[in-house]
């Protein structure tokens, strides 16, 4: 209702149409809108809830949206024109780390946990043992072919020698349909963003056996992408939007704000689901969280070039993209320069380098940043790999 009325209100500022999905990590854009952070930066933001990633992609490609909270592999697919016409995009800031669950049907999850405990092996290996013992082909749901979920799930399965297509069938199931698909047996599990794993767990249809953290402890999740054309035409508004999101990220990351954010997101016009299901993956929202999004701490909002390169290499690994100049594409889309220009003067610590080595830290560490260092958490991959994308360059 309020959306219809909002359309009639007089407009001032630069109009920015932002698409988002009903996911917990849409929180920063919702907070930035509701608290007037966008308005204070002279931006007249329209938040547009979309039911599918395909809609986000098409509406960006054809100019119905100026920006979106997006899974980075899809941003690259749009940029490369892999699923329709191409549209140049820029990512001046990241939105979240972590927040996905790997959820299995309750029966399968119990079996996997039992084997994992009995044989003292990791969850993916227990799943592999389960599949060898039984003869039913396992089908797992992902949210889109060009999603972080597809890449993380494949990575996780591969550590136990399971390959999508050969050992496990991956099919796309919209998260809002995942519970139904679990109950009907169409899928034996799925990988999706919060709150959908929690919702499946609350209905008793599924159990979360792993989260993003169990695949990669600092896995980049959503990013803020804009049409490059819009960004070029509205340089001041672009910077304002980044500042508004950085501010909102700090709010969303503060544990004391969790119940407020959860209640805000649970509104019908945003996620429209039980606020407790949302709360469980917000920072500070659960006592012993089995899945948690991060919005600010550990330089989350910085658009790391190394994240871009990791996504592109993984897309190439699974044959989702052809021959592309990975480094050039990563640099074109992930715009550390725009982030730095936007937040200059805010007094926040900004990383000096555009890339970092990913997966090298098993414990807390300190990142070189200016004016002061940034406290970082562990960032290991489940297979212990260390990803060194490019030589680490220092900018200032």
């Amino acid at each position, binding site marked *: *209702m309020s959306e*219809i*009325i909002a359309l009639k209100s007089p407009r001032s500022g630069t109009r920015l149409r932002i698409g988002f999905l009903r996911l917990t990590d849409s929180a920063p854009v919702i907070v930035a809108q509701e608290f007037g952070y966008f308005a204070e930066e002279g931006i007249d933001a329209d938040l547009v809830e979309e039911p599918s990633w395909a809609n986000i992609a*098409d509406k960006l490609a*054809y100019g119905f949206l100026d920006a979106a909270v997006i899974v980075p592999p899809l941003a690259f697919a749009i940029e490369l024109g892999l699923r*329709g016409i191409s549209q140049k995009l820029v990512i001046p800031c990241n939105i979240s780390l972590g927040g996905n669950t790997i959820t299995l049907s309750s029966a399968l999850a119990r079996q996997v946990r039992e084997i994992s405990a009995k044989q003292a092996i990791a969850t993916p290996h227990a799943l592999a043992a389960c599949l060898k013992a039984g003869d039913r082909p396992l089908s797992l749901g992902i949210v889109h*072919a060009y999603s972080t979920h597809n890449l993380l799930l494949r990575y996780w399965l591969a550590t136990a020698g399971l390959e999508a297509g050969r050992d496990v069938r991956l099919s*796309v199931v919209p998260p*809002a349909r995942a519970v139904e698909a679990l109950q009907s047996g169409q899928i034996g599990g799925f990988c999706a963003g919060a709150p959908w794993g929690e919702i499946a767990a609350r209905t008793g249809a599924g159990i979360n056996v792993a989260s993003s953290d169990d695949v990669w402890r600092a896995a980049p999740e959503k990013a803020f992408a804009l049409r490059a054309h819009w960004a070029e035409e509205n340089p001041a508004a672009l910077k304002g939007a980044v500042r508004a999101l950085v501010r909102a990220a700090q709010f969303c990351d503060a544990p004391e704000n969790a119940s407020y954010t959860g*209640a805000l997101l649970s509104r019908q016009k945003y996620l429209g689901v039980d606020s407790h299901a949302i709360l469980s993956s917000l920072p500070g929202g659960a006592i012993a969280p089995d899945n948690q999004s991060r919005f600010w701490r550990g330089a989350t909002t910085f658009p790391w070039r190394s994240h871009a390169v990791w996504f592109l290499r993984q897309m190439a690994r699974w044959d989702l993209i052809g021959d592309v100049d990975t480094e050039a594409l990563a640099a074109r889309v992930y715009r550390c320069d725009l982030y730095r220009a936007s937040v200059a003067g805010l007094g926040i610590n900004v990383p000096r380098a555009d890339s970092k080595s990913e997966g090298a830290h098993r414990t807390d560490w300190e990142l070189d940043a200016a004016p002061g260092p940034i406290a970082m958490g562990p960032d290991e991959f489940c297979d212990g790999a260390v990803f060194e994308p490019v030589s680490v360059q220092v900018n200032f």
Partner: protein
Amino acid sequence: MSLTVLLIDSEENRARALEEKLSESGFARVVRAEGPDLAAAVERAKPDLVIIDMALPDRDALEDIRAVSAASPVVMFAGTDDPAFAQEAIAAGVCSYNLSGVALQDVRPIMASAIALFKRYHHVETELAAAKALLNERRLIERAKAILMKDRKMTEPEAYRWLQKKAMNESRKLAQVVADFVADDESQQRERKP
């Protein structure tokens, strides 16, 4: 030439109207399907074209290139050569996937029919939504007044003035203020009884 169209639309009347239109004009044979397992529906029907309501979450399932079509990649018809036509389709809320590489001139009249129908329904829906919004606004004002009268012991005129003043102070529409007020109250209620 007889094309097979898989139609995925949860709006029953609109779907039936499009089905009739396409069969009468001899453009295509229509098969209807609904989620969640659209990949299986595609396998069964082997359509040349899929037409889907963009309001459904199921579009993403159709995007799984390998699952949907092993032989030829899925091409989103809209926009392969005519961005204006694609934009019209998106604005109307309908989208299509060309699975068998049917010539564009054969697909065009089919999509034109779909766009026209979706536009007409969209118009009706917008009017309906506006009427509903007005009703809802009145309902919410009553609800907000009731909360204020109960929790803060206000009289009805006092409650109404309080809401008006709040709207004025925040320079927002009364409807928005009332909607948020009621939503916050409801979520607080939920917090209290988990």
